[in-house]
């Protein structure tokens, strides 16, 4: 088992080490998230009732945009310097290496967002219970964003205007995660309980974790040709 997973672990380790040498990138994405969330009340007005109502959607959409920011750089640097070719020619499973990169991306871009979200939720006057549900929904949902995003990043690798194109391809596919994620808190406030939404979100996570690395690998092989 550990032999089978070793390329996966090596790939995660490598990308985390690289991220540690580029700390500014992590901080930038996080700061982007914080600033977008804080802009919303400024555009909408400080009415606490209204803010409480839009909080889940606002935090979710901001999280979605923040992960999008780092996705363009998920494969591009490795493609530019030839590392991706070496990975494609590795005797180990290319899919596992790609899965490792996706996990590393989530740890760097998704996890900090999840951790800071409750603090920002306080600014929107959310109750303790809502904050907890929001955090759980983000914890289940942000990996989905990284996984589906990886497919888009692989498809647009090395393509003209890849940044804007990536958003065009990926954002419609993010809709189910957004609906179930933000909906969990709203359903709870409406008295329906968050379980249904969270289970669907978890199911989506399992399905995308199973298929997305594989599809991304196929797309990367096409991009390398």
């Amino acid at each position, binding site marked *: 088992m550990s032999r089978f997973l070793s390329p996966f672990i*090596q790939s995660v380790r*490598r990308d985390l080490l690289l991220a540690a040498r580029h700390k500014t990138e992590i901080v930038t994405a996080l700061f982007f998230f914080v600033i977008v969330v804080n802009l919303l009340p400024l555009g909408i007005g400080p009415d606490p009732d209204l803010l409480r109502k839009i909080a889940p959607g606002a935090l979710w959409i901001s999280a979605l945009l923040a992960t999008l920011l780092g996705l363009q750089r998920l494969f591009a640097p490795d493609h530019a*310097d030839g*590392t991706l*070719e*070496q990975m494609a*020619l*590795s*005797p180990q*499973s290319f899919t596992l290496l790609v899965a490792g990169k996706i996990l590393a991306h989530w740890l760097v871009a998704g996890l900090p967002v999840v951790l800071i979200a409750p603090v920002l939720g306080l600014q929107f006057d959310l109750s303790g219970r809502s904050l907890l549900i929001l955090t759980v929904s983000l914890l289940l949902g942000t990996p989905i964003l990284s996984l589906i995003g990886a497919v888009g990043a692989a498809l647009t690798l090395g393509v003209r205007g890849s940044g804007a194109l990536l958003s065009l391809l990926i954002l419609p596919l993010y809709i189910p995660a957004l609906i179930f994620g933000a909906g969990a808190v709203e359903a709870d406030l409406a008295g329906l309980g968050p379980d249904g939404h969270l289970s669907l979100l978890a199911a989506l996570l399992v399905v995308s974790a199973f298929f997305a690395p594989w599809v991304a690998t196929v797309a990367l092989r096409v991009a390398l040709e």
Partner: protein
Amino acid sequence: MLSVSHLTCQRGERVLFQDLSFELPESQWLQIAGANGAGKTSLLRILSGLSEPVDGRITWNGSPVREDREAFHADLLYLGHQGALKEELTPLENLTLSLGMEGFNVSEDAAMQALHQFGLHGREHLPVRFLSAGQRRRVLLCRLLLRPARLWILDEPFTALDVHAIGFLSRLIETHLREGGSAVLTSHQSMTLPPGLCVTL
């Protein structure tokens, strides 16, 4: 044995080469010659299984290279003209991490030793962005010492190397051939290798 039959390569609307066939037996090396833009790198990428030819068939010990990828890649060491080095990592980290991803857990001592053999004393812990082009090339070539493979596909391996390093690399290739390995190279430099096969594009 690497065998290639009726290979055709097309870039955009231009046909680079067509109906190319050859065989590369063990202990032999093959030079791919041709002018700039003749398709040397394209051919190497096709041989390694990265790109798909428009037409033709490439087999390694009888099985097509794009089918049983993992078995072929276990025997293959491909060095492209891109560095595949991370600027922000040290030579030591670059080697151990990239080989680790290929399933070869190289100890730090072994990697250190390889770097010394290629004359990189004192550069082991310097981020690669501080190294010169020739030194980067040497870091890359250390893979030849650390990762066992029966088929070497090397794109312009002698570029940017000084006389000393060229000699060392030539001896390395000779040893590889003597031990039953085979190699495919493109190069503009005249080489001091035993006579090999040659394909001109």
